[in-house]
């Protein structure tokens, strides 16, 4: 992993997530947009070495919190779920596009629910239609992966992610 490139990449994604460009793709009157940082977390968590995956998940969480107060909920939720994904990838195969879509959707549901709960603990008021927004965002993020997966894959190649080591048997 080339960490300086990763920092640039995460800054670009964060800026994109916070930009009006993504507002153009917002759907429904709930203004539902895809969560690009969630896609990054899920994809890197299942591809990188677990040590790197933990750092990436927390950093992506911090980036997500930077563009929407308060700081903390996404660090924790992305951190926990990214670490869990990195841990269970040996048990559950998440290689095909369909499995990745399901993983993004489920992680989005759990991560956003957890972060909203943590934000409410920190005194942030709950917005109306929270369940709808969480479901919509998770679904949209999963769908966007189908269309922009190739772009993310190319970016990940640029930051030279190292796949988790595969144990080989030598006779």
């Amino acid at each position, binding site marked *: 992993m080339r960490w300086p490139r990763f920092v640039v990449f995460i800054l670009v994604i964060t800026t994109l997530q916070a930009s009006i460009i993504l507002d153009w793709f917002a759907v429904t009157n709930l203004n539902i947009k895809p969560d690009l940082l969630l896609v990054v977390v899920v994809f890197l968590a299942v591809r990188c070495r677990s040590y790197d995956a933990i750092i990436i998940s927390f950093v992506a969480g911090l980036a997500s919190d930077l563009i929407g107060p308060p700081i*903390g909920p996404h660090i924790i939720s992305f951190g926990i779920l990214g670490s869990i994904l990195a841990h269970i990838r040996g048990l559950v195969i998440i290689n095909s596009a369909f499995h990745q879509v399901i993983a993004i959707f489920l992680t989005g549901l759990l991560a956003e629910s957890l972060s909203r709960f943590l934000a409410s603990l920190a005194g942030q008021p709950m917005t109306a239609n929270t369940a709808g927004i969480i479901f919509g965002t998770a679904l949209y993020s999963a769908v966007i992966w189908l269309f922009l997966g190739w772009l993310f894959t190319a970016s990940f190649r640029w930051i030279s992610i190292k796949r988790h080591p595969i144990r080989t048997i030598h006779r």
Partner: protein
Amino acid sequence: MEFRISAQYDMARRQIRISKAMLFTWLMLTGLICLFSPQRITNKLHFAFIKLIPLPILNAGLRTLSTAATSQSPTGYVSRRLYIQLENHAANLSAELDDTHKKLETLARLRDRFAFETAAFVVADIITLSINADRQELIINRGRADGLNHGQYVLGENGVIGTISDVSTGTAKVMLVTDTASRLPVKIAASDVYIRWKMQGNGKGGANIRMLPQKYKIKSADIVYADKKPGFLDAPVIVGRIQSFDPDEENPLLWDITVKPVCNIENLISVAVIVMNP
């Protein structure tokens, strides 16, 4: 048989001596500290991010933060409690303004009618609504003090819904056109002629026009107007539409017409009373 792990990975593990569990714990603690830190401190991270990236492409939410970042001062902050109080107050004011706009719009629309140029429209809110087989009436929060009198016509959604049947200083009772005691002079806009007749409420959310000779060519959805009544109504105003018409049971040469009011009374919040020559 032996397990081989890539040399590079081994080297990396040797360089970083913190275990995965420890790394996870430290990062979690960092997250929790950030979460429960005062917002005025964590906001500095937001401001730092905003200064890093070009402003024009930021979305509205961050632009607001950005404005706060450029003009931040100790007096620029209020407590969350005060913020919520102010937000609620703003919501109340907004609802009040919306309500006033709606009343103004209703009045403006009504004044467009040339015949009512000399009329005043008293907008009143509905206090109670009684709808049952015996009685179909509503009580409104305007009365004699506002110029209301017995017999005046009451409009809802630009259609006549009833007349004032009783009035006190501050309230008035409106007998709806669907009340069995209501007998309203009406004008049916049939295809070839206007037919003047009487309409009586049926107590079931509609009204009937009885004993109309079958020589008149009427059909479903023909408009029924409240007829002009000097001193009370200067021009016909819609009351309802013909829902059905059947030969009268006693005299098959006459129509028994059922009229459906144009206004759904149960959805009304306010009404307008026509006060001619106030």
